């Protein structure tokens, strides 16, 4: 738990600081109400121990401000001058408990135990609620920054129409999650959502996957198979890495979008199809069109509405929320009690630019939780995220930055392509293509 002790007496601050350290809590102290509010702005402490009698802003005034601005923060009032009146007032405003100084050691221990049970229940509830929401809507798209608020407000709006949507965002920004959320908000939500990564499937196989085939049309086609364009019937088709598909496939898909009919491989009978298309790309398709690497008519057909998903470096204020979410998730999944992070470590995570975006952050937290030997993650648990040898200065283009970053990840993973692809959030085939495209070589 993260705790702040607010008391004007240094010996009290010191005593409680050392006491809570014995439980592995993240502890900070503040000598006044104003000092406490300043520190709360920088770090979302979960629990405050507040003395009532302090010069300037007293404990009750601080409690009122905290409950208004940080309603999730719990406050325990401590005082040497207890009265029933002040206790009732504090509890009415929202204090979690009220303790008279000095208290018996087991008294504090009991209060902490109660809070810990309460926190655990809330965490479990939030986690289970999150798991439940995953099936329905907006789950795992975490953020309250203005760029994410803009995405959240767009989702229900664009979900209502049937127009094709193009999601544009860097790798790891959560494009598939947004696509799922749009599907869940749409009138098609009770129908299938099928996601296909175009970059991961070879051209010949992609055609058969999308359009289906008749029995015996090619080696291995031992029976007829319906394509996803037909299987999705009425639902949403999500085509990730749309920029990777061949010009021929672009023509084929364009025809499907215009005619709403498909003909499976080896058949002459067209079948009516009905689906909503959401595509995603991390490439600049406008540029690809200008360079004649992508068909203009197809681009305008799939890009009726464009939704841009911001990279994590442009919404760093969401990092604490995401960290908390992943800490709970991986503490539960690994059955390890690693549920705190130091202020310095959080600072480090906020400082880093996260070229692999939310997926890289999630991997970093998972790895830190798995390897951690203590309950609190510190800067030493994130030494692996320190960029070495690469400085993402403004002089690097996006393309150069991508190249440098892929090289870095490959070197870090001794050129294990499967592992590197997992960290980069792309599939092996795409990584192989990128290695070739950027002419990357193992450093001696």
């Amino acid at each position, binding site marked *: 738990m993260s705790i702040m002790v607010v008391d004007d007496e240094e010996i009290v601050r010191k005593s409680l600081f050392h*006491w809570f350290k014995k439980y592995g809590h993240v502890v900070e102290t503040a000598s006044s109400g104003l000092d406490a509010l300043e520190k709360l702005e920088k770090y979302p402490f979960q629990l405050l121990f507040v003395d009532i009698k302090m010069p300037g802003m007293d404990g009750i005034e601080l409690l009122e401000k905290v409950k208004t601005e940080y309603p999730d923060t719990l406050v325990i009032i401590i005082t040497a001058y207890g009265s029933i009146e002040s206790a009732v007032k504090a509890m009415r405003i929202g204090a979690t408990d009220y303790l008279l100084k000095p208290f018996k050691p087991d008294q504090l221990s009991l209060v902490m135990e109660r809070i810990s049970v309460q926190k655990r229940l809330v965490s479990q509830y939030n986690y289970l609620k999150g798991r439940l929401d995953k099936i329905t809507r907006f789950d795992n798209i975490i953020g309250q920054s203005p760029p994410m608020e803009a995405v959240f407000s767009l989702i229900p709006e664009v979900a209502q129409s049937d127009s094709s949507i193009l999601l544009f965002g860097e790798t790891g920004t959560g494009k598939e999650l947004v696509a799922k959320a749009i599907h869940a908000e749409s009138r098609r939500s009770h129908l299938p959502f099928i996601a296909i990564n175009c970059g991961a499937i070879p051209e010949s196989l992609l055609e058969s996957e999308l359009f289906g085939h008749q029995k015996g049309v090619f080696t291995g086609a031992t029976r007829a198979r319906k394509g996803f364009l037909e299987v999705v019937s009425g639902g949403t088709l999500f085509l990730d890495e749309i920029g990777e598909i061949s010009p021929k496939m672009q023509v084929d898909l364009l025809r499907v979008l215009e005619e709403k009919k498909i003909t499976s491989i080896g058949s002459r009978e067209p079948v009516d199809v009905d689906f909503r298309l959401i595509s995603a790309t991390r490439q600049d398709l406008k540029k690809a069109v200008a360079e004649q690497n992508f068909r203009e008519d197809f681009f305008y057909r799939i890009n009726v509405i464009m939704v841009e998903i911001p990279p994590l470096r442009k919404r760093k204020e969401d990092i604490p929320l995401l960290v908390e979410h992943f800490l709970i998730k991986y503490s539960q999944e690994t059955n390890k009690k690693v549920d705190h992070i130091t202020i310095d470590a959080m600072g480090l995570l906020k400082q880093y630019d996260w070229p692999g975006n939310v997926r890289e952050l999630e991997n970093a937290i998972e790895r830190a939780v798995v390897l951690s030997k203590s309950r609190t993650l510190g800067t030493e648990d994130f030494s692996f995220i320190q960029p070495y040898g690469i400085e993402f200065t403004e002089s690097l283009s996006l393309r150069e930055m991508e190249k440098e970053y892929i090289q870095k990840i490959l070197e870090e993973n001794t050129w294990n392509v499967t592992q590197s692809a997992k960290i980069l959030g792309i599939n092996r085939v795409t990584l192989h293509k990128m290695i070739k495209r950027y002419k990357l070589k193992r450093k001696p």
Partner: protein
Amino acid sequence: MTSNKKSVGLVSLGKVPEIVLKVMADQITRCFKLASQILPPMGQPEYALDEKRLQYNAGIIIETFESMLFGDDHKIIAVLNQDLFIPIFTHVFGEARQGGTCGLVSLFRLAKNPDGSSPPGFLIHERATKVALHELGHLFNLLHCENKLCLMHFSGSIEELDEMPLHLCEYCAIYLQDKLG
């Protein structure tokens, strides 16, 4: 058998029966596999007496000891017969800071049962040894443990102290091994 160059010094502050230190030294070797040594006694820490509370301020004693140089590999457990407190608590049986050098054990409240009766001598020694080993755990950076059957579980009353075993749970034992290297 001890397998570590780290060692623990036991010192009495004022009058403390020598048998208490001997029992502690023996258990430190058994339980923590560390060498222990009884050091020459020191005087009662009058500098830490709080005249309003008529108790001894554990923080002041610890800070005094921590300012002395014992070397990185040496931890000190100081035992006294006086009542100890830290400013927020009415009393403490013992006190140490995470990763510190010196831990304190007070015998004052251990020589009485919750019902007011006097416990036999061996029980007082056992209680004092539990407090000493618990504080030593903090000096090696062990945290309070949620397992009630672990020496590092916090016990705020004599009943809880008596229920606490004289050994670490398997996780704390692993952490300790890790800290001792």
